[in-house]
């Protein structure tokens, strides 16, 4: 029985006698924003990567969802980009400064920045993502309160900053500081099974991407579109919110946002998507 079960499973999959079953796999399509800017949504994987090809979550969404992202006028996430730009230019805190006070030419300063995070922060002795960098600027340079996790302004400003790198390839620099050690830790977590359902990130996103898990079409779980606009929630969803949701779905307690565990995971999972074009604000189910 041990040897025959695989072929039995294959046989039963071939039968597919049910109308309720869906057909999976990434869709063959191109993401071109406003008919002008083509985004790299499929790239060859680097040496030592578990996949041959890295594929954006965009390819696993429905035609309607894909179309929303391709049209910046219809993409609901673009409202958050606009809001983020306002916040960028608004003075806040006791120092009487805005982001723009220190970083004058936003166009020049922010171009490509979002594509290179998370980044080693020597003072903090750990990797920083955009959210942590914003909070550091607010506290140190603006003398303003740091944002609480998932505050509306935090999501909008992060979305604006990432959007300034749209189409640019995601690239994390693992040579800085202890980035490699954080990558190692993130990798370990990626393959660690959690919760009563006993699932690791890899169980779903590595072993079964392209398959439907109920009504959800499993992607490779790449992060190049974050923060993403989720239709289900009619909201921008931050990366750590998504991580926590996936972990909760294994019926596990989830780590705090920006904890060492989730930062390590962010370093590792961002690396898994190396070379994909930044899509922020991506549109997802």
């Amino acid at each position, binding site marked *: 029985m041990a040897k025959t079960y695989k072929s039995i499973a294959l046989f039963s*999959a071939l039968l597919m*006698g*049910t109308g309720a079953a869906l057909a999976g796999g990434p869709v063959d399509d191109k993401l071109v924003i406003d008919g002008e800017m083509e985004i790299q949504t499929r790239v060859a994987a680097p040496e030592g990567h578990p996949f041959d090809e890295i594929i954006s979550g965009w390819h696993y969404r429905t035609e309607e969802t894909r179309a929303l992202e391709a049209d910046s006028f219809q993409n609901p996430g673009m409202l958050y980009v606009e809001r983020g730009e306002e916040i960028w230019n608004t003075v806040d805190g006791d120092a009487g400064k805005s982001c723009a006070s220190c970083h004058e030419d936003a166009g020049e300063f922010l171009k490509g920045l979002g594509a290179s995070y998370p980044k080693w922060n020597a003072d903090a002795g750990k990797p920083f993502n955009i959210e942590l960098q914003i909070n550091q600027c607010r506290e140190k340079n603006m003398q303003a309160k740091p944002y609480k996790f998932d505050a509306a302004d935090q999501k909008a400003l992060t979305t604006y900053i990432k959007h300034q790198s749209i189409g640019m390839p995601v690239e994390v620099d693992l040579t800085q500081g202890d980035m490699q050690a954080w990558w190692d830790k993130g990798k370990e977590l990626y393959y660690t099974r*959690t919760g*009563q*359902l006993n699932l690791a990130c890899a169980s779903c996103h590595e072993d079964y991407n392209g398959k439907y*898990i109920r009504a959800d079409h499993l992607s490779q779980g790449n992060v190049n579109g974050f923060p993403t606009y989720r239709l289900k929630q009619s909201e921008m969803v931050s990366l750590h919110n998504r991580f926590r949701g996936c972990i909760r779905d294994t019926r596990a*307690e989830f780590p705090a946002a920006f904890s060492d565990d989730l930062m390590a995971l962010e370093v590792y999972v961002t690396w898994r998507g190396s070379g994909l074009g930044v899509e922020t604000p991506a549109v997802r189910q």
Partner: protein
Amino acid sequence: MTKGATFKALPAALAGLALMAASVATAGTVAPDSVPIEDMELKQSLTGTAGDAVAGREAFADRKKGNCLACHANTDLNEQLFHGEVGPVLDGVGDRWDEAQLRAIVVNSKDVFGEQTIMPGFYTMKVGINVAEDNQGQTILTAQEVEDVVAYLLTLKEN
């Protein structure tokens, strides 16, 4: 014993009986992981009570219980939308496996398919780390629900 004493003692005696009945039921229920799965089989019923296929069909579909449709398509449940395609289609699964094998698969699929399988074990304590507080010390299905689901799977025949 006098008549009066017997009469007075009756409620206590009944209570004692009820207690015994409850402990008998518990003793008859096999605790998770206490009976090893051998050669991909678990012959012994977990409860000694025959599985109810109708209840099993419900536990199979219930998202809070088996949620088996998350991963498996099953024509018998075509009234439900969106069947997953992570695992094999379960049509005819009652022809492919016998009762002892199906029980082993549902109790702890890792003992049948290997450690790498994505399929959760529904009556085992061998689970992942950081189990959510609400789920700690509990199996996904109860012993009787496992028996019910197994009875239901045995009805999925094509021949």
